[in-house]
């Protein structure tokens, strides 16, 4: 039924529309920030920015392993593909774990919550939506990994999954500078 490329195209369309959802959030963030000149800058270089940088590196690394997974699947090396997929899942999971630690830190020590201030609203709104995407990605990748291990799924399926994962990664590359680096303590 599905001609080659249909799934990839479908995923591209999804990514396009999801990108717009994120763009909306970032536009809101920009508008609110411009309207409130006394925007707080709560992030100390250490630990917050250090943490966030590590998270960024982990996520980037997981994109790399995803590339290898796609590559292995392209060569029909299912075992390798599963391994790289698992590595990717590990990267994503560590990202979430680190992120949650960072959240807890903010909530308990800096007393910033979604309801505490506009900054909190934006911070938790944007990063929360992103984290939800990472979490959904983990489920998606798990399904792929188990499927591939059992001999299901084609190279295109893995490629499609890769597209999603790179997209989640890409969004973070916007979120990180906009939300973190622009709120570093002066």
């Amino acid at each position, binding site marked *: *039924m599905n*001609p080659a490329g249909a799934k990839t*195209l479908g995923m591209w369309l999804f990514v*396009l*529309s999801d990108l717009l959802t994120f763009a909306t959030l970032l536009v*809101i963030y920009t508008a609110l920030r411009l309207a409130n000149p006394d925007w707080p800058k709560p992030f100390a270089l250490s630990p917050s920015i250090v943490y966030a940088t590590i998270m960024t590196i982990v996520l980037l690394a997981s994109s790399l392993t995803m590339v290898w997974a796609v590559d292995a699947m392209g060569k029909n090396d299912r075992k390798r593909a599963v391994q790289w997929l698992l590595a990717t899942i590990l990267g994503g999971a560590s990202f979430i774990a680190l992120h949650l630690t960072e959240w807890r830190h903010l909530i308990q020590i800096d007393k910033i919550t979604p*309801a505490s201030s506009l900054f909190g609203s934006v911070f938790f*709104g944007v990063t929360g*939506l992103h984290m939800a995407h990472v979490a959904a990605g983990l489920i998606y990748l798990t399904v792929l990994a188990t499927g591939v291990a059992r001999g299901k799924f084609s190279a295109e399926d893995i490629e499609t999954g890769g597209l999603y994962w790179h997209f989640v990664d890409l969004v973070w590359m916007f979120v990180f500078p906009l939300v973190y680096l622009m709120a570093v303590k002066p």
Partner: protein
Amino acid sequence: MTIFSTDHKVIGKQYIGLALFSVLLGIVLSLVMRFHLVHPDAKVKLFGALWPDGAPGGQMTPELYLSLMTIHGTIMVFFVLTTAPQSGFGNYFLPLQIGAHDMAFPVLNMLSFWTTALSLLTLLAAFFVEGGAPLSGWTAYPPLSGLGRITGPGQGLGQDLWILSIALFCVASLMAAINFIVTIIELRAPDMGYFDMPLTCWGWFVTALISLFAFAVLLAGGILLLLDRTAGTSFFVPGGLIVNDQIQTRSGGSPILFQHLFWFFGHPEVYIAILPGMGLISTILSTFSGKKVFGYKAMAIALLAIGGLGFVVWGHHMFISGMSPYSSIAFSVLTLAVGVPSAVKTFNWLATLWGGRLRFTAAMHFALGFVSIFITGGITGLILGQPGLDIYFHDTYFVVAHFHLIMGVAAIFAIFAGLHYWFPKMYGRFLHEGLGKLHFYMTFIGVYAVFVPLHFAGFVGNPRRYPDFKEYEFLKAVMPLHIGVTHAAYFLAAAQLIFLFNYFWSQRRGAAAPANPWGATTREWRDD
């Protein structure tokens, strides 16, 4: 026919069934509203039984009226006009018209439908929770919709369910949009180029493209509004508020921001409602005048132009919202510009008829009625599109008249035309032509009788979203008008019974139809 079918034809029919259920509910709500507007003090036992809290002793409260209005608008826009013309007809006929066996992703298709159904259930559930359905209109502007129960009954759980329903609807529509676009790009018959597709396919294609972007933004808006309500964030809540004598601690957000998000979606949404109908009308006019569509390429390009320009005119709903007066000027120019491709379409429809041999089938009646109503409803857009003039008309019944004509009934006429036209393909039988024409005449007259007079209420300055008109001296003058409109609405609604009878009776008993009863040239009539 299994319930969780992945067959595009079954899903198409399911969507049409959902739309039919919704439209009946929407009509009933509108009749109750019309009744209340002219008999605000009446005690009706039935209302008391249906809504013990909203209508104690049968006497309807203002909040009940407003919640009926909210659900009426939401149902009609989302569950009728965003489902039947696009997902209903589109699912059924797009694959047939481009020579595909099914949609590109049948399982996703099934999921879209059931998510839509879930979304409808979520919306209706709002009636049954504490406080009832929300009363903030289908536009749900914060802070009214963003602060919870303190802004009014219905603004508690009812409003949460409303937002949740809309979010689900967004997800369902996004899935459907992806499916449509991929199907058109990937599954067209090898000999069919883009500019060989029937205009119906162009209508569905452009609509899917619009949906892909518009619903993504609404989804973001919905999520943020939900966070404002449940997580205590303040995206849309400014500082220094005292609501219901309670000081609010949140600060910094902007209510107008939500309006930008809503209308960035909302304006394209009205085109989502009408573009599939436009495509359909082109096909029907051409078939029954025995001619090709006049200016095929111009028509396809006009659809694209409406879709594209539609994304930069949202500000015309916000001329008096307090946004920068300079942006109003820009939005005004763009708004009138988006009228141009609509006019081009109208001219081409007339030119398609010109020199033809017109066969006045029921479908053709509705198609001609569509053109007439589209002109009547669209032309008032040229008044509303000027911010200087909109100052007076915004939020009056003039706007209500505008959008009911062009959206409400023009798009609905396209559905009727489509049903009469495609019924033989869907059920192997004809809808009864005589009943169809009778239904057409009553509906056509009824529609003008209901919605043209409402313009004049707008001239008097009659605000919309008023549960009654007792409080104001100047509104006494419009009461006769409203009474007339209410009677016309009863008549109009009664006329729909003819359609209902015809629709269900003909499925079993209608005259058997040959393979290509109208002598049409598109692919769906060819094979099988």
